[in-house]
């Protein structure tokens, strides 16, 4: 067996330029797969971070009716029990209560339908980074605070410090309730949804104007380890559901995003398949060129008593040696291309994808499979695809091949 592998390996270096060029092509294919995977994962992680550090957070609890109706009267049930469950769960790092409902915000010149968030500022800062996107003024600090989105500010034709009227329907009576507030902060989250339609007030103020006492509509959760909360089978969710409320991770809340990311993963697979197919055609072409030049040699080997399967091993060894060289070159190309981009990141400057704003540069996301599974897959693919030309070489017609060399 060793002699066939040796001949195969040595044959690779008979036409060094061709072998190196082919290896570069395969290596580029591998590098493309690794870099695409790294940046796609980086983009995915970036977007997940945007979601989980934004208002969605890593998990939420609601009254199931609230999720459908957004009605102010559908507050969280058995709130003390729910808070006890959350406080007792070792994986829950922090949680924040929120009052949420539709409202109308009017200025002297204009009015807009909005979503008003009543937040506990200190708790909120422990579960989201929304406060970091205050572009003017201050984040919600007290019951007089009103933080509005920057686009909402434009629509209402007001400025920081101007007075506006917040109108809501009381939770149970449905009576309109109004409160005059001065704009104390402007939010520029980079998301059209937030910047155009959201306003933040203190939770106590919200509870007061909606007339819901100490109740609230949502609990936003931050886990010590995000991946724990992502598990549907994590016991916390069942415990919360037993209270009559619905607890779910961010994956369930933004299910459309999860589906889109699943499709992105599929696209990545299809792209890798097409890429490997193109590389595969290149490999087959190169091996055929190399084999056609040496048909007489295969005929001689057969004449000396070498069996067909031994010729196949020989050609596959040649492809294997080429694959090893390609993998090494591919990893070098990956480092050369991915390292600078990985360090600086790719800035998409607020581009929205799947309803999520990419706020920060996308960095290369490394995981071990990129330098284990991908190279192994490339090696296996190269060796497997060489079976076709190898079979062709093994089926050489000796009399004809030898005659052609005379």
């Amino acid at each position, binding site marked *: 067996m060793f*002699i066939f592998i040796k*001949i195969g390996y*040595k*044959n690779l270096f*008979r036409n060094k330029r061709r072998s190196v060029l082919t290896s570069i092509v395969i290596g580029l294919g591998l590098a493309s797969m690794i870099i695409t995977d790294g940046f796609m994962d980086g983009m995915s992680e970036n977007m997940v971070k945007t979601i989980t550090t934004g208002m969605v957070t890593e998990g939420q609890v609601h009254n199931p009716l609230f999720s459908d109706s957004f009605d102010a009267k559908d507050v969280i049930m058995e709130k003390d029990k729910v808070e006890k469950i959350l406080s007792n769960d070792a994986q829950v790092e922090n949680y924040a209560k929120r009052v949420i409902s539709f409202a109308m915000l009017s200025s002297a010149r204009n009015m807009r339908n909005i979503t008003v968030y009543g937040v506990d500022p200190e708790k909120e800062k422990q579960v989201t980074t929304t406060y970091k996107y205050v572009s003017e003024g201050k984040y919600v600090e007290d019951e007089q605070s009103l933080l509005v989105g920057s686009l909402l500010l434009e629509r209402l034709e007001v400025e920081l410090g101007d007075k506006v009227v917040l109108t809501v329907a009381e939770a149970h009576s449905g009576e309109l309730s109004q409160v005059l507030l001065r704009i104390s902060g402007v939010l520029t989250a980079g998301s059209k949804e937030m910047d155009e339609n959201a306003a933040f007030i203190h939770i106590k103020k919200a509870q007061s104007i909606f007339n819901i006492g100490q109740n609230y509509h949502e609990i936003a959760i931050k886990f010590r380890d995000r991946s724990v909360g992502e598990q549907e089978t994590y016991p916390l969710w069942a415990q919360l559901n037993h209270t009559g409320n619905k607890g779910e991770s961010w994956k369930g809340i933004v299910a459309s995003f999860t589906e889109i990311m699943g499709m992105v993963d599929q696209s990545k697979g299809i792209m890798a398949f097409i890429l490997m197919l193109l590389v595969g055609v290149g490999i087959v072409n190169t091996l055929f060129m190399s084999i056609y030049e040496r048909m*007489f*040699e295969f005929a*001689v*080997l*057969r*004449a*000396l*008593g*070498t*069996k*067909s399967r*031994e010729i196949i091993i020989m050609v596959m060894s040649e492809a294997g040696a080429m694959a090893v060289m390609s993998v090494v070159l591919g990893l070098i190309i990956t480092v050369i291309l991915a390292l600078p981009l990985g360090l600086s990141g790719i800035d998409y400057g607020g581009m929205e994808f799947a309803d999520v704003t990419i706020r920060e540069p996308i960095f290369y996301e490394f995981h071990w499979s990129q330098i284990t599974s991908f190279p192994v897959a490339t090696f296996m693919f190269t060796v497997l695809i060489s079976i076709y030309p190898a079979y062709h070489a093994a089926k050489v017609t*000796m*009399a004809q091949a*030898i*005659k052609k*060399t*005379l």
Partner: protein
Amino acid sequence: MENNNEVIFKLNDIGKVFGTTSDTQVHALSDVQLEIKQGEFTAFVGPSGSGKSTLINVMNGFDVPTSGHVLLSGKKIDLMGESELANFRRDHIGIIFQSYNLIPVLTAKENIEYVMILQGIGEEERSKRVKEFLSIVGLEGKEDRYPSQLSGGQQQRVAVARAMVSRPDIVIADEPTANLDSKTGTELVDMMLELNNKYGTTFVFSTHDPMIMEKAKRLVTLKDGKVVQDEVR
């Protein structure tokens, strides 16, 4: 070694037709009846197109006859399957090609021991035989050279060593001196003759060269695919 007159190769009514339609058919061999005895040094001679190479190809199993049977050591090689024929050729037939056809990526030593590796012979025995045959063909000290580092005559000597080192029943060569100058060609045939005399190895080869023909102990003349003369000297 003595010639024990045992018939080792038998060609029974061999016919070989190339082409499929009556217009294109060429009868390369017709009713060839031939026996090769152990220890013979036989040359196939005849003009171009007489069927020498076709006969050689049929004898070493490269080509299958259209009619008749080829028997080596009592076995019909034309009826063997691919794998069986590969093994049989490896163990019983030594082949020398006109263009040397050494494996370019292997050294002289590795080329010589290749067939022995296929036969599963151990390294120690292989080294012993390689050393012996390098000495016989006069290439001591050149065992680590690649074919490209050897002259044509030296390459053909390696090819002779490769054909003989596995101790085959017969060595078949298709115009082994055609690519060599007359001096080197004569030296090569002298060496083959010496091996024939010393080891009793049976040689069958085709040639155009009258000087080489002179050295053959048996001369089989072909014309239009038929044996027209069989002269034992």
